[in-house]
């Protein structure tokens, strides 16, 4: 990875935080972090689509410790147990890895991770909110999806982007059981995929992406619940019809296609008004679109977000 300085910084913050944790109780930490607030530069309050090349910076809360971000993972291909994933995922062979980009596009591509990162990488620290009501703050490294879309040139009929994970039951132990229809499938509307916030991540905390976090390539859509951010991507297809995603197929009343972070729309099990930041005990209020409202709200103008949850 070319991001040496990022690595130094994040490690320092991480060590510092451990030291702090050891010295004080979790409650003191909460008081300290309550001072941070998520707000974006007011210059880019967007009522229309942002450009792929817009320079974007985001304020964020204190980073989640690397250990927490890598040992508390929902990754059903390996295990429904969030703590077991870190061990089981090490079985996956991530090299070589080619992703197929096709469907309704002018230039279908098959590219390696190196060819993808050659399109240019960005560092983005995003808040990451799980539908289950917990959240993290993670520094990602990745390629903006809009860069890839510019390269493959979708046809006029392409309205959605469908992502598929790899299917490899010999290495992904839970794919041997029919917990859901494998491989995992996710989807975005084309304009959501083109939003410059949407990235294909290849690294985090200045390091290559750990296997339990979706190596070698995963999606990160910070204003949507975590399950939209599909891991171990093998195939990206441009399609005209809205794809049926894995969790929608399993429980359509619970998991919607949009899955935008929305404190006003409760899930039957998890109140979405609040979230618990990993490492903390008390829940905090959840922000509409996970705090990225000004960058993405225009995508949903005129839509009923309670029906289109």
């Amino acid at each position: 990875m070319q991001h040496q300085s990022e690595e130094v910084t994040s490690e320092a913050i991480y060590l510092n935080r451990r030291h702090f944790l050891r010295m004080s109780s979790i409650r003191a930490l909460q008081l300290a972090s309550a001072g941070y607030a998520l707000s974006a530069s007011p210059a880019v309050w967007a009522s229309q689509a942002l450009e792929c090349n817009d320079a974007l910076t985001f304020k964020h809360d204190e980073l989640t410790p690397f250990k927490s971000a890598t040992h508390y993972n929902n990754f059903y291909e390996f295990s429904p147990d969030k703590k077991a994933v870190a061990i089981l995922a090490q079985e996956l062979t991530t090299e070589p890895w080619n992703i197929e980009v096709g469907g309704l596009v002018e230039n279908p591509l098959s590219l390696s991770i190196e060819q993808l990162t050659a399109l240019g990488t960005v560092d983005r620290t995003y808040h990451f909110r799980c539908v289950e009501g917990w959240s993290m703050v993670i520094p990602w490294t990745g390629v903006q999806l809009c860069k890839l879309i510019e390269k493959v040139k979708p046809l006029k009929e392409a309205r959605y982007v469908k992502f598929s994970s790899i299917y490899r039951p010999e290495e992904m132990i839970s794919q041997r059981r029919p917990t859901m229809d494998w491989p995992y499938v996710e989807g975005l509307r084309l304009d959501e995929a083109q939003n410059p916030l949407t990235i294909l991540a290849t690294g985090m905390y200045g390091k290559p992406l750990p296997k339990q976090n979706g190596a070698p390539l995963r999606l990160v859509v910070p204003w949507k619940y975590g399950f939209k951010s599909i891991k171990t991507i093998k195939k990206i297809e441009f399609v005209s019809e809205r794809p049926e995603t894995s969790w929608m197929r399993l429980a359509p009343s619970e998991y919607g296609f949009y899955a935008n972070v929305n404190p006003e729309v409760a899930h039957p099990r998890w109140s979405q008004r609040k979230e618990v930041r990993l490492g903390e005990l008390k829940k905090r209020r959840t922000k509409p679109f996970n705090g990225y409202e000004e960058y993405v709200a225009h995508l949903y103008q005129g839509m009923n977000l309670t029906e289109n949850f």
Partner: protein
Amino acid sequence: MNSILKYLNQHDGQLRLAIFSLSTLPFIRLYLDYWFDDLGINPFASLIERSGFWGVFFLLVTLAITPFRRWFSWLSSLLRLSYGKRLSDWNYLIKCRRMLGLWSLFYVSIHLLIYLHFELGWWLEDFWLDITERYFITFGLVSWVLLVLLGITSPDRIRRAMGKKWRQLHRSIYALAILSIIHIYLEAKPTETDPYWYGLIVFVLLMHRIVVSKFRTLRRKDDTGMPSYR
């Protein structure tokens, strides 16, 4: 073996003390983990899951007492043991039951307090929204209210004063068990299987009572759920 069983039945006070001590352990462990900041990566989830587990654990153990006494006495007859054939040989199980039920109330109350404090921060407005939006919370709350009613009417003095009504009230533990299973089922993800296991246990424990009361040959005057003296 016989002498151990006999000893237990004659010294149920010591047994209760032992069970009482053991039942404090999950709480002590939970509190120490909380105090030393050792609850894991998601401390809130750890607190709420562990308190809930022990609440339902003690509820199921409480419900298991009556069937187990019957099954143990049946098994003892089958094995032609000299001790254990009579229901009264297992009276000490019945004598531990109230305490086990109260431990369930204790852990479920801790579970509720964790929710009220760490999730809601005592915002009653949010509480109301939760009850109307997330039905598993409604089921859980109703279960807790029933459990409190059973708990406060559990002293001997109140039981005697209530007469027949006491038994009617305390039969609501069956409804309470079903409500708490619904609570667990609604709270679980569609991919989780443990609600089915809890459901199966409750089903078996309640079916025992239905079967015993429906079939004349199985009915026994001394199997009232109270200590037996035959």
